[in-house]
């Protein structure tokens, strides 16, 4: 085998990006990596990092790692946005703009891919990992090793997509890579392959997590917690995981088929030899529509918890909220054609899916009214999470109405792929998913890290997000009506669009300030953590089980597994004056799964598989797959004694040393 054979199609020229922004990005990432390594070395924390984080199977730790990765990717995706907006403000008429067109195309492709797959999914799975076991009164998830593996697969996809900055290039075919643009003929480089494998690997991680949390919620609720006594957030996660399980296999197949077209010359979606590129659009949206509900349902669940707690009232209409979640879940499989009304289907097909799309807005509306009814006659504490909730109510309703407009095929023919569409879906995702996840993080992180964050700074941040969003996307609704298409890197000056783009640019800057404030307050909160300590484990006067344990949550979650008799079990216990549980607590030994490096190993090997397939280093792929099989075989041999014991005495020690409601 020649040297060239070993490296596939990777050559030196792929390693040096030629565009200034890309070079800057690569250098910054490199410096950041060096800084982190230097810091860990200086603090002599390599062993700690390995034992406490890299080999952990504790969902609370895994959740924190998901969130860290998601926040990093938020910054990356945000920088993409700033460049894109910069381009659209300046690249008018004779002016060239700030980036070349091919870079702009990579920017919008990377922006969408990163935000959906790594920021939104990352924040969501992070919060789910942190909160679900605590809410249902469990000590762990159903399959802890699988959980860790899912995280490392997610990480692997993240590394791949960032590698595309420095080694080769990224896709220019948008966040969904429609053929024929994504086929070999029009995208001969590695960009689309990076897109495919980054998503394929992260997608498998998501699917496995879906199964994991679905089984966890169904099988590991504490005694007395029937499904109809379960907190709404856990219900929303159950529904979301149902969608993950049944939607992600479609993505796996679609990505594989596209890769086969590119790698072996198959004809699934090609123009020639019997391919059908419309089948790609059909399949990818059969996944894509459930995906957006996967993201937003947990956001809804978070708001249910936040609104009830900060209104000091039980959630209004628990049963109708559950039914609404179930209805949205089922209906989300019946609306996908609304993403391609203009692809040419007949009026009967379009009408059916248009009607189903309008119907799915109804249960969502029910939820909005129930949240408002929860607030009505409540004793409301306008904390930072409530600011995000108010922003959500205002923005989501507007975006939702825009969505109902788009649900009508006749209107959609005018607005498809215009900036009106872009404004609509950003409104839904930012106000529903992002605001929801932010509210959840502010609300629940104190339980995990043991101290509260700065409410005042977070409120400023919320204002920046809300005002910034209105400025950034309000003009886009108008631009859509004026005929502006999405993904345009240049336009004529007589369109009159530039002032509106300038306002949008200002909005993005304000959002960036909001993000900066969030990150800053995090640093400040860490610095001031001793003053902000959560001394009771129940900082917000909560209603559900997670507030009944000390903060920070011990590794085993509950020293004694709770027994529940109704909804809002912790609130009921507090009303009875029985917050700490049984008066005489008998501590027992607790069995927990042991740490393992196998998850990390599989993630790294998955990266090798992906990288090798992208660069056609085909010799490496079977070796890496074989290595994964070996890791799994070894891992399942070791399972018979892969547990550790926390003795009753240790448990008692931990319980007494941490802040609890009854000891305050």
């Amino acid at each position, binding site marked *: 085998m020649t040297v060239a054979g070993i490296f596939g199609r990777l050559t030196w020229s792929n390693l040096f990006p030629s565009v200034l922004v890309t070079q800057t990005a690569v250098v910054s990432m490199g410096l950041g990596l060096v800084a982190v390594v230097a810091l860990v070395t200086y603090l002599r924390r390599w062993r700690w990092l390995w034992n406490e984080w890299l080999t952990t199977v504790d969902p609370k730790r895994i959740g924190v790692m998901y969130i860290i990765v998601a926040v990093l990717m938020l910054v990356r995706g945000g920088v993409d946005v700033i460049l894109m907006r910069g381009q659209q403000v300046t690249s008018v008429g004779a002016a060239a703009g700030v980036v070349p067109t091919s870079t702009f195309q990579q920017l919008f492709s990377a922006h969408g891919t990163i935000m959906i797959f790594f920021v939104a999914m990352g924040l969501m799975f992070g919060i789910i990992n942190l909160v679900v076991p605590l809410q249902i009164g469990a000590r762990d998830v*159903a*399959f802890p090793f699988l959980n860790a593996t899912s995280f490392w697969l997610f990480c692997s996809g993240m590394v791949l997509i960032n590698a595309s900055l420095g080694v080769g290039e990224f896709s220019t075919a948008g966040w969904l890579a429609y053929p024929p643009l994504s086929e070999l003929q029009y995208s001969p480089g590695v960009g689309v392959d990076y897109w495919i494998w980054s998503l394929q690997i992260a997608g498998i991680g998501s*699917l496995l997590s*879906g*199964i*994991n949390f*679905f*089984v966890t919620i*169904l*099988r*590991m609720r504490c005694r007395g917690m029937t499904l109809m006594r379960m907190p709404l957030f856990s219900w929303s996660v159950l529904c979301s995981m149902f969608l993950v*399980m*049944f939607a*992600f*296999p*479609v993505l*796996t*197949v*679609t990505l*594989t*088929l596209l890769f*086969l*077209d590119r790698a*072996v*010359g*198959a*004809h*699934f979606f*090609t123009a*020639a*030899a*019997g*391919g*059908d590129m419309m*089948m790609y659009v059909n*399949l990818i949206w*059969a996944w894509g529509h459930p995906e957006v509900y996967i993201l937003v349902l947990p956001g809804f669940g978070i708001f249910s918890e936040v609104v009830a707690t900060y209104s000091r009232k039980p959630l209004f209409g628990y049963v109708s909220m559950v039914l609404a979640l179930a209805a949205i879940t089922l209906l989300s499989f019946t609306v996908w054609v609304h993403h391609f009304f203009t692809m040419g289907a007949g009026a009967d097909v379009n009408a059916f899916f248009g009607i189903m799309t309008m119907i799915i807005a109804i249960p969502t509306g029910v939820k909005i009214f129930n949240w408002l009814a929860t607030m009505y006659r409540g004793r409301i504490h306008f904390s930072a999470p409530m600011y995000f909730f108010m922003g959500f109510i205002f923005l989501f309703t507007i975006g939702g109405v825009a969505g109902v407009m788009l649900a009508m095929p006749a209107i959609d023919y005018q607005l498809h792929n215009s900036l009106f569409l872009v404004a609509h879906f950003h409104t839904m995702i930012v106000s529903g998913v992002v605001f929801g996840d932010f509210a959840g993080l502010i609300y629940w992180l104190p339980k995990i890290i043991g101290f509260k964050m700065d409410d005042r700074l977070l409120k400023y941040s919320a204002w920046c997000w809300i005002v910034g969003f209105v400025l950034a996307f309000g003009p886009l609704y108008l631009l859509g009506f004026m005929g502006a298409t999405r993904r345009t890197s240049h336009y004529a000056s007589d369109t009159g669009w530039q002032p509106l783009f300038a306002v949008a640019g200002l909005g993005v800057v304000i959002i960036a300030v909001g993000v900066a404030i969030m990150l800053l307050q995090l640093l400040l909160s860490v610095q001031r953590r001793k003053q902000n300590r959560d001394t009771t484990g129940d900082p917000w006067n909560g209603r559900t089980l997670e507030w009944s344990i000390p903060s920070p949550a011990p590794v085993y979650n509950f020293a004694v597994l709770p027994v529940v008799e109704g909804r809002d079990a912790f609130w009921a216990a507090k009303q009875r004056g029985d917050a700490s549980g049984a008066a005489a607590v008998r501590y*027992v*030994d607790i*069995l927990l799964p042991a740490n393992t490096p196998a998850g990390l190993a599989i993630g790294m090997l998955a990266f090798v598989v992906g990288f090798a397939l992208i660069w056609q280093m085909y010799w490496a792929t079977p070796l890496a797959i074989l290595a994964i*099989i070996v890791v799994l*075989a070894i891992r*399942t041999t070791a*399972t*018979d004694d892969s547990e550790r014991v926390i003795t009753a005495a240790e448990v008692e020690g931990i319980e007494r040393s941490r802040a609890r409601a009854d000891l305050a």
Partner: protein
Amino acid sequence: MSVQAARAVQHLDHEVEADDRAVFGFWVYLMTDCVLFASLFATYAVLHKNTAGCPSGHQLFDMPYVLAETMALLTSSFTCGLGMLAARDGRRNAVVAWFTATFALGLTFLTLELAEFHHLATTGAGWSRSGFLSAYFTLVGTHGVHITIGLIWMVVMISRVLGPGLTRGNVRRLTLLSIFWHFLDLVWIFIFTIVYLMGSARV
């Protein structure tokens, strides 16, 4: 009850619950695998007429050969079931015998299938000739990949049973493997019917 006894009871309860969850979780995974195959079937259904001038199924499929493959796989599903009954009853040698038989029949199926693929590919009806052929190879090939994984798993399990024997963990893993193997025969029913029989029926 002494501390040791209490710990042992807690451990066993824990184990029983864990086994229960493992089987249910694996069942749920198989349901997602069904959706995976359904997407491949949908793609096949959309593309099966797109032969682009190349041979169609009717001209390519050797029906007696396919029947033989089908019988091999079906029988292997049966022997796998008998193996699980033996595992339930603790009969270690019977377990090894039945699962070895299952492996042999499964390997026969896979060999026949690979030979068929090889024949098609070398006589000009390869993966990249037409939409129909791409869909055919991918659908049937994905099933073949699952079979291969099952065979590897079977080898590992047979060696485990020969070694440590029918421990609780091994019985659990055999249960998962057998559910997996039965599921693969179920998918094959549809491949046999939709790809081969319907392909043959449409002249």
